Every structure is written in C-alpha cells, then in structure tokens.
C-alpha cells in the first residue's frame, strides 16, 4: 500500500506544474515545469516498486529529453509569440470541452473499478528488469535498437541543409557590400562615446547624434534599449553647460 501523504505530494508536484502547459505564456517556463512533472513521475515509479524505471525516467526525461527541448527553444528563439487568432472558430472551447470530457470520462471509469491489489509486490530492481529484458523480451530490445538508430539518422537527415551554391569567401562578401553601396565597414558598436558604455545605449557619431542602428535588433524587439531621444535632448539642451556631459 502507498502512503497517502506521499501520494498527495506526488499528485501536487505533477498536476500543478502540468497545468502550466495550458496557462504559461513562455515555452521555457512550460519546459521547466515539465521537468518538475517528470521528477514527480519518477518519484511515483519508485513508490510503486519500480526503482530502475524511476532512475531511467530522471536520466532520460529530465536529463535528456527536456534539455533537448530547451536546446530547440534556444535554436528557434525564445521570443516566438503565440498568435491568439483562432483559425477554427471556437477552437478554444471545443478543445477545452473535449479534453475535460476525456478527463472526466477516464476518472469516472477508473474511480468505479475495484481491483484486488496483489499481496506479493515485485520490485523492479535492475537485476530483475535486466533478466526480463534480455530473456523474455530480447527481440523487442533488438527492434528498439533499430528504431533508435533510425531515429538518430532521421534527425540528422531532417536537419541537414545541403549547400546549394558555392561558399562565399570574405573577399566576395565585402565586394558585394561595396557594390550595392552599403556601409563598407562594420556597424558602430553600441555605447561607443555615449554617456554610458553599455550595450543598450546607442553610439554617438562625430557630431554627437545617436546612431540608432548601432543597438542590437534583439534588444529593440524586447524593448530593453535606452531611447536615443533622451540623449539627443540632453545634447541639444542649451541650458546645460559643457561640463555636465
């Protein structure tokens, strides 16, 4: 039998973070909550007499799978916004109703079941599991090996981008840049000669005017920049003395 306190703790640390799947805005927050859910599930496995599976759960899910999710989140950009426009009319309510109905259905059915719990519980220690895996289910293990290799190769193929045109050297890049009349040199670094030497402050040109494109585009999207206008106003304010700057 399972300690009720332990059960309710497990229920709390699985269900509450799992709800972030529905309510959290940022995918990173969701990923971190799912890590907590996975740890809770591993605890449940150990409680139910499956210590090997609990450890595998922690290693595979919290260690590998969720970190893979975080890698992909970094690749596609953390700032991917979710558009709130509904493509299918009323999709939110249909989906919510369907999922809640499914949950209520499952819970009501399972709650009605009475099952005699075995008096001789087995514990899935690694040696017990290993004998099972490599004797009774050895063919399945082989097939899973094929599956894992296929998945790895498939992921490589899917993310591989063939080079369609010859590699451009630095010289060619620079020539093209000059030909189209773009700025032949690098963009000015932010913060150069400005009042604060920081990434969020635009650089000043020789005339003392802020250069807006010297600040990173990412900072602008996140609204984490200092406005150039503030510095422009200070520069143009005739009441300020030269020494104040």
């Amino acid at each position: 039998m399972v300690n009720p306190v332990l059960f309710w703790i497990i229920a709390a640390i699985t269900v509450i973070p799992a709800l972030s799947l529905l309510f959290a805005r940022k995918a990173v927050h969701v990923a971190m909550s799912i890590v907590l859910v996975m740890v809770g599930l591993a605890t449940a496995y150990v409680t139910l007499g499956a210590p090997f599976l609990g450890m595998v759960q922690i290693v595979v899910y919290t260690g590998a799978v969720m970190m893979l999710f975080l890698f992909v989140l970094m690749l596609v950009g953390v700032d991917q916004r979710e558009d709130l426009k509904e493509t299918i009319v009323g999709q939110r309510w249909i989906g919510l109703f369907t999922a809640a109905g499914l949950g209520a259905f499952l819970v009501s059915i399972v709650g009605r079941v009475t099952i005699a719990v075995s008096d001789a519980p087995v514990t899935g220690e690694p040696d017990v599991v290993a004998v099972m895996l490599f004797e009774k289910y050895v063919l399945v293990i082989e097939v899973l090996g094929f599956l894992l290799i296929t998945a790895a190769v498939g992921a490589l193929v899917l993310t591989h981008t063939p080079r369609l045109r010859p590699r451009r050297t630095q010289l060619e890049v620079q020539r093209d840049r000059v030909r189209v009349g773009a700025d032949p040199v690098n963009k000015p670094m932010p913060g150069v000669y400005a009042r604060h030497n920081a990434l969020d402050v635009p650089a000043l040109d020789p005339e003392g005017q802020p250069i807006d494109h010297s600040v990173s585009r990412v900072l602008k999207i996140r609204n984490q920049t200092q406005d150039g206008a503030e510095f422009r106003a200070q520069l143009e304010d005739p009441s300020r003395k030269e020494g104040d700057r």
Partner: protein
Amino acid sequence: MDPINFVILASVLFAIGAAAVLLRRNAIIAFMGVELMLNAANLALVAFSRIHGEIDGQIMAFFVLVVAAAEVVVGLAIIIAVFRARQTISLDEPAELKG
C-alpha cells in the same frame, strides 16, 4: 492507499496533455503535451504492474520510454526543419495543404 489512485492521477495528467495538444498553437508546447500524455500512460502501466504484482508492466513502460525518446528526436528535428523553412513554429501557420 490503493495504487489505483495512481491510475486516476495518470488519467488527469493525460487529459491535461490532451488539452495542451488541442489548445496550444506553439508547436513545442503542443509537443510537450504529447510527452505528458505518453508519461501518463507510463504511470498507468507502472501502477498496474504494482496492482498485479507482475513486472511486465514496468518493462512495457520502459519500451514506451525508449520509443518516446526516439519520437522526441524526430519530432524536434521536424520542428527545426519547419522553422528553417518558414521562420515560425506556429501550428496554424502552415496551411498549404488547404484546398
């Protein structure tokens, strides 16, 4: 406490995962919903393994774990490929197959 309660917990988690798949438009979050559904099924398997006193349920859960890992790898690769092609991971955006 009866281990059947863990099956009820698994049902609740499964419903939450299903709701995430149905409601969220961010592909990665929907994918995490799929993961949660797989894990809910795993929890049910382990709970039944405990109820029946047989270890086969845990072995099945182990197989589900391995298949889920392979599925995550391919799924995330597809998400990255789609992102490279259209600069978005919204599930509603790719509507080319619409008649």
